[in-house]
């Protein structure tokens, strides 16, 4: 299990990356943290002619809070995002989901953008980006374009990123202070690949559930504040409509079943979190008064 030969380029400046992608297109692969790409190279499931390593490109290492959210550069590791002190406050869903990604050593190298680029149907970060209405900045010599998560993930391991483009940044909007979040995941093994994961966001007037259950791309569903029985009906509809192709019928059935129960639990947890947050805010207001 050794990679096939490739030409290696250590990128120092983003412009070099764009130029080389224009030159090599589909024959190039972008290496950031390598935690998804390197196993694929070792197994020779991909054999790029040129490997473009952006991990030392300073300009892509920025984790920048913006007015409405968080701007995460291509080389920012998952560990860096997780250790950003305001994460739990500003994007609580991501703070809940990131500990489910890989393991500590993988997160130390793996980048958030790399996971999005890889677009594995069972990965947590694409799900979160979709749930959070995040956006991706794709850059090439032709310029930059911003694309919504919903349009970015096209199929399993297939994204809207063109051969001459790379993910320069991910934009994750801050969650509103009156929202509660929950992230629940079930895997055969505690740290294994998710069979089903549910990201839930509960606002004062709406509920959102993003579901990963083995289908090709993350699915996001919005609901008004419905009673539990109605939510269950809605989740049953999602579960039935999932396009799955698991190894066994049992596994398919299991995922559909879990979408309902885990989804409901996630929505309930998110609403409780929202209510707790509101109660804390009320206390603070009270205190200030």
């Amino acid at each position, binding site marked *: 299990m*050794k990679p096939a030969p490739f030409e290696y380029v250590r990128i120092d400046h983003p412009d070099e990356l764009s130029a080389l992608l224009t030159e090599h297109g589909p024959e190039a692969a972008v290496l950031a943290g390598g935690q998804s790409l390197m196993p694929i190279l070792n197994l020779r499931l991909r054999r790029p002619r040129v490997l473009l390593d952006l991990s030392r490109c300073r300009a892509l290492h920025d984790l920048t809070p913006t007015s409405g959210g968080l701007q995460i550069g291509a080389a920012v590791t998952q560990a860096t995002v997780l250790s950003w002190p305001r994460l739990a406050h500003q994007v609580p869903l991501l703070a809940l989901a990131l500990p489910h990604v890989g393991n500590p050593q993988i997160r130390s190298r793996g980048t958030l953008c790399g996971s999005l680029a890889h677009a594995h149907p069972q990965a947590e970060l694409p799900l979160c980006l979709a749930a959070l209405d995040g956006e991706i900045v794709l850059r090439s010599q032709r310029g930059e374009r911003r694309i919504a998560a919903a349009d970015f993930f096209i199929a399993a391991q297939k994204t809207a990123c063109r051969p001459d483009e790379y993910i320069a940044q991910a934009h994750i909007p801050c969650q509103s202070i009156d929202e509660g979040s929950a992230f629940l995941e079930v895997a*055969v*093994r*505690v740290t*294994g690949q998710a069979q089903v994961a549910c990201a839930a966001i509960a606002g004062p007037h709406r509920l959102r559930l993003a579901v990963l259950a083995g289908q090709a791309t993350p699915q996001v569903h919005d609901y008004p504040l419905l009673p539990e029985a109605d939510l269950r009906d809605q989740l049953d509809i999602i579960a039935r409509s999932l396009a799955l192709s698991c190894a066994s019928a049992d596994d398919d059935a*299991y995922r559909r*079943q*879990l979408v309902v129960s885990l989804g409901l639990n996630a929505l309930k947890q998110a609403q409780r979190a929202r209510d707790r947050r509101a109660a804390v805010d009320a206390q603070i207001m009270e205190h200030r008064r």
Partner: protein
Amino acid sequence: MSERASRFGPSAGTRVEDAALLCGRGQFADDLGCKPGTLHAAILRSSHAHARLRGVDVSAAERAVGVRAVLTADDVTRWSRPLLAALRVPVLQPVLAKDAVHYVGEPLAVVLAENRYLAEDALEAIRVEYEPLPPVLDIAQALTLDGPRAHADLAQNIVSDRSYCYGDPDAALAAASHRVRLQIAYPRNTATPLECGVVVAEHFPDGNGGHGAYEVMSNFTGPMSLHAVMAMALQVPESHLRLRFPRDVGGSFGTKQSLFSAIVLLCLAARKAGAPVKWVEDRREHMTAATSATARRSHIEAAVQDDGRIAALSFDQIDDVGAYLRAPEPATFYRMHGCLTGAYAIQHLRVRNRVVLTNKTPTGLVRGFGGPQVYFALERLVQRIAVQLGLDPLDVYRRNFIAKDAFPYRAAAGALIDSGDYAATLAVALQAADITALRDRQRQARSEGRLYGIGFAAVVEPSISNMGYVTAALTAEQRAHAGPKQGALAAATVQIDPLGGITVGIDSMPAGQGHRTVCAQRVAAVFGLAPGDIVVNSELDTQKDAWSIAAGNYSCRFAGAVAGAVQIAAQRLRDRVAQHCADLLGCAPQDVVFAAGSLHARGQPEHILPLARVLSGPHWAPALSTEAGPPPLRETVFFTPETLHAPSSDDRVNASATYGFVFDLCALEIDRTTGRVYIDRYVTAHDAGRLLHPALADGQVRGGFAQALGAALSEELRYDGQGRFASQTLSDYLLPTCLDVPAPIIVHTQTPSPFTPLGAKGIGEGNSMSTPVCIANAVADALSSLPQSEHCQDLRLPLTPATVLALVAGGQGQAATGTVAVQTGKIR
């Protein structure tokens, strides 16, 4: 610094192996240097489960950068014979497929290049033309009369079909007030050591009728009966196939037995290349093509009296051994044959054993070898007996156990079970578990609608394999024709160097169990030294060291046999030393006392001789001591248990020298939302005879438990509908992490074995046998509170959350597929 250093020195009893391993100074097979010019091998493997080979074109690979040679099936045919099997079978395994491939991962060619990267590049230049054939993918399909054959020219997939009868099972079954039946399956799984296989081989062409000689270094761990198979395949006398072993092996759990075919392959590759070659198995190769536990389908039936006493058992077992009957198969059956009646006094037994070939990886040794398959059926049956008769399972156990005054007990099929007090071990387990409190907790949980279960398993754990047991697969006439095979030799050497140092050599090929620590302790005690004074070398060399066909790391032969041989060798050498120095001390040899690095006559501790000086004496002045026999410099002992005979003419076989006992208890809860199993308490009670090193014994139990937990809950070697292998990496084959493994409560009773020198028995395999079925019994018990629990008795391993939730749905009377509303349970 010196104060700090002493603070961190080893305490008594710690392992002699650890300092090097903790500092990165291990000597694993891939850490050892190679000769200059050694080439690196990569193996081209079949991507098809079953296909005719229309052509394998290696010409481009031969021209690839850095490639020195490519070994093909033609070379293999020219220079070797197929691997011999334990039975006469219509197809033998060649080390490279020639006309057809029969499992995914079967070797097709070997590239020898300057490094592994280049070798893998060249693999991609080999053109293989396959003509796919229908594969045989499971036991049911293998049995169909008009279905596909695993090899196109086979008349049938069954390659062995033997029936056995002990006592009068038919009468007992006919007369029984209850007959309890179960049909059950055990899946393919494996032990997955962290270190994969390594083979370094070299060919010396001169002599021996053109075949020359071979030298190999490998982390193969025996049994060394396979050395003969390798030598015969290579067409050389065994003396011309020299095997050497590294000091450290990164786990085996039996699986490194399967390396013997790779050793033959790499020997031939070295011959082709005219240079030493090295192959390091990668994880994908290991998962795909190394080995697997034998998959089994069993029909088991018991004749049971009203009080739960079992009068007779009937087994109808079918083993899937994969594409070839690779030695030592069908040993998965016959290792357990003599003790098929488990921990119970049952004298009527009927057995039918069939072996089928399928288009999957050949099977072999995996921790527990044979035991997990037998006990998954037998102990599930005991649970079913309790349920069906409305009895407390503990009463079923107590009423059927072999009585403590019946040992040594001759089981129906021939096992001579050496010692034990099963009821006492069960009592110790229940006490450790606080069974009364657990049952209260279960009642409470059930009253809240939760699925809480308690399961048990009782297991007789054989150790020290009888080298003749697999011949029980032959008929008595065939055995008579082949000549008797029996015994289980263990070899140990203790020798003295010219400055009086002591070195010990053993044939147990340790893979992490701490054999060197235990041997150092035993020998040190005999000579009145500290364990740190003794060097133990486990790097067996077949041309220099004492070994036999039984050598190797399997069947937990160390504690009972090898440590015993070491003890005998050390005592003999000490006695000979005493003979030589008795005059100097003015006492009888038996009154020479060895203590604290010196010698004295009993009762005269003030007059001492330094031990090192006495021990070294014969090196420097051998003529001084000839009257007392040859110079006491070296003692080699071959020990074999006296109770291991060849199978009798009526097919009874004592397949192992000792039989430990394990009683397990598991209390668990099923999460009704996710189907995940949460273990609340796990107690494992062991009687492994005398424990030589309790901390190391507990380590074996904990490790065995963790592996068995994986087998119970997450691990399976999976194939898809076309026979493509679906568990190639460790993200597909899920080993438990530290978040998945609870700490079991371990308790011991000790009834020494009368048949081993130190009274010790094996302890490393019991949990592989007891834990999967104990967990399954607990899951069955948890499901029993569901309204239609009869619908969820067909427990298949692994009990993944999906499998368990489907069972819960079945127990609730719902279809197992489609979406259902799930009652939300408590998630911890």
